[in-house]
């Protein structure tokens, strides 16, 4: 009996099942962490691991305040501050990078300088090079100028950290616009400023959003700079998490998983939203499609 014909390039539910199993296995490490976050202390340590359990929000409460010894009163852990720091620092630095980077990308795309490609290459290289190469002098600079441990310092640093990415990404969006539209606007007597704000910028709004979200994720995830250049006041989540892992938390896996879950959820939401721009984002705008 002949199987039902299907158009070329399409597969049916069989493929859904296969891909579903693979995707589940692939996603399992993340899923297990999220499950663990809802387990009680003993459930999380159960041997063999439990699949069915009564979920609890206890771990999430403890992320923000817990008692450090049995019977002692719960104290704030400072994680609310760390979350705020992460959001505030990532937000401000991405904003700066976006403003400066979008302008530069427009310049590189529309008014090429002599040696345009060289500039762009250097800019990409600064993004590709290991952070370790610049971190020593930056560390020294921050010590000397007193920027170490301040919001201003880390925000500036992250803005520059995001800048190459923003420039390449936005340039790739600007490069895609039809030059005819700009010619038309020039002929219609539009000034360059009006042209930029009224015609070009609205066309790349989606690109700006994608770039911003990517920048937020990159900054949100960044560890090494944060480790060396943030103080107690400005500590971000990755650093706090790393310190918690190595610190007093021991085998309170549920608690650790809860921190991670809170840390991961924004990222997963972003992947969902950004799916169409992911390729361009992870290659820093060098590959469009």
């Amino acid at each position: 009996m002949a199987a039902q014909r299907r158009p070329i390039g399409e597969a049916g539910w069989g493929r859904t099942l296969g891909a579903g199993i693979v995707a589940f296995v692939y996603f399992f490490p993340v899923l297990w962490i999220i499950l663990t976050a809802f387990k009680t202390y003993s459930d999380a340590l159960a041997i063999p691991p439990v699949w069915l359990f009564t979920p609890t929000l206890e771990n999430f409460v403890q992320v923000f305040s817990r008692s450090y010894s049995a019977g002692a009163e719960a104290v704030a852990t400072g994680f609310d501050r760390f979350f705020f720091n992460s959001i505030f620092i990532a937000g401000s630095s991405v904003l700066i990078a976006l403003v400066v980077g979008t302008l530069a990308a427009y310049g590189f795309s529309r008014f090429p300088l002599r040696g345009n490609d060289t500039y762009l290459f250097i800019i990409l290289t600064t993004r590709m090079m290991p952070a370790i190469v610049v971190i020593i002098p930056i560390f020294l600079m921050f010590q000397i100028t007193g920027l170490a441990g301040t919001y201003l310092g880390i925000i500036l640093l992250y803005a520059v950290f995001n800048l190459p990415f923003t420039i390449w990404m936005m340039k790739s969006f600007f490069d895609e616009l039809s030059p005819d539209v700009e010619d038309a606007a020039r002929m219609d007597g539009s000034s360059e400023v009006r042209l930029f704000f009224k015609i070009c910028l609205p066309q790349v709004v989606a690109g700006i959003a994608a770039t911003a979200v990517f920048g937020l994720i990159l900054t949100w995830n960044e560890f090494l700079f944060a480790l060396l250049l943030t103080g107690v006041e400005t500590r971000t989540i990755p650093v706090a998490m790393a310190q918690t892992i190595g610190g007093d938390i021991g085998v309170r896996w549920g608690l650790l998983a809860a921190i991670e879950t809170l840390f991961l959820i924004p990222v997963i939401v972003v992947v969902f939203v950004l799916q169409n721009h992911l390729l361009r984002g992870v290659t820093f705008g060098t590959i469009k499609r």
Partner: protein
Amino acid sequence: MSTLVSPALPQAPRPAPRIALWMVLGAILGALVVMVGALFLLPPAVGWWVALAGCAGAAILAVAYAWERHNYGPLLVAPALALLFLLNIFPLMWSFGLSFFAFRANRLAPPRFVGLENYVGVLSDPVVWERLQTTALAVVLTVSLQMVVGFLLALLFEKQFPGRRYLLILVLTPMMLSFVAVGAFFRYYYEPTFGLLSQFVRIFTGQPFILLDTPAGAMAGIIFADAWMWSPFVMLLVLAGLVSVPKYLYEAAEIDRASWWRRFRTITFPYIRGLLLLALLFRTIEAFKLFDVVFLLTEGGPGTSTETIAVYVYRLAFQYFRTSQSAALAYIILFIVIVLTNLYLYFVNRRAREA
């Protein structure tokens, strides 16, 4: 062109620029004088602001100068280049300079010029070569694993099927996660008593399994975590190649009764070849910098069996405080990355030209 322009023709007037070059240069010079003066003569708190105001003034004049001449290009890229210079290029130059001096950041002794001694020292240090070997091993293993897994994943997701979009999200997520989070995951999974891996192995052996205890195991643990994270990256690039194959080619191949392998080799592969190469280069550059996962998972252990070159530079700089030596080593790494990046961009441009 001037030879052919007839001067007799009427010409629409064009406003003459009001700001001359000498004014801008003068302002920059003035700003410098103000800066130096302010920083030396005034109390630091005030002087700093005066200096800043001087810079701002000169900058505004320079902007006006470029604006009048419709030099939008330099104007638009200048702020970005300035920021990059301040926090990327300048530190790079600093560490370049540092690499020629003997200097330890935790001592008060002033830097002493030693020429190429640091480079000679680093390159003749067997430890460095050992770390480079470790790194090379890790890069080869993780990148090839990523290429294979990513490629297979891409084949799985090549066709349209119900729910593809949502399943893709599950697979793509690891790539966007933080190294810290991934390190923490796998620490948990590799944990000897409660970790899933150990529990799973115990079913068969009855013994707890301590993966990170042996050099080979630790390396495998790192490779697995890194490849898990980055295989989706390869998948994404291969998928981009796969969907760019025009459907009519497959239809023609179907009618010409081409076998699966032949169809793959003659139609599909040419479309993904370029992207595979780009994925390979990009992942190699990134894997070369392997730091966070190692740092969080094994801290280079057991012993130094998984200490990659990036981790070693970090230790040199911030644990042994051999600052200038670490700068020299960092520069050697940078050189390799620049070569690879150049190669990568060359292929990116070639692909763009072919498209």
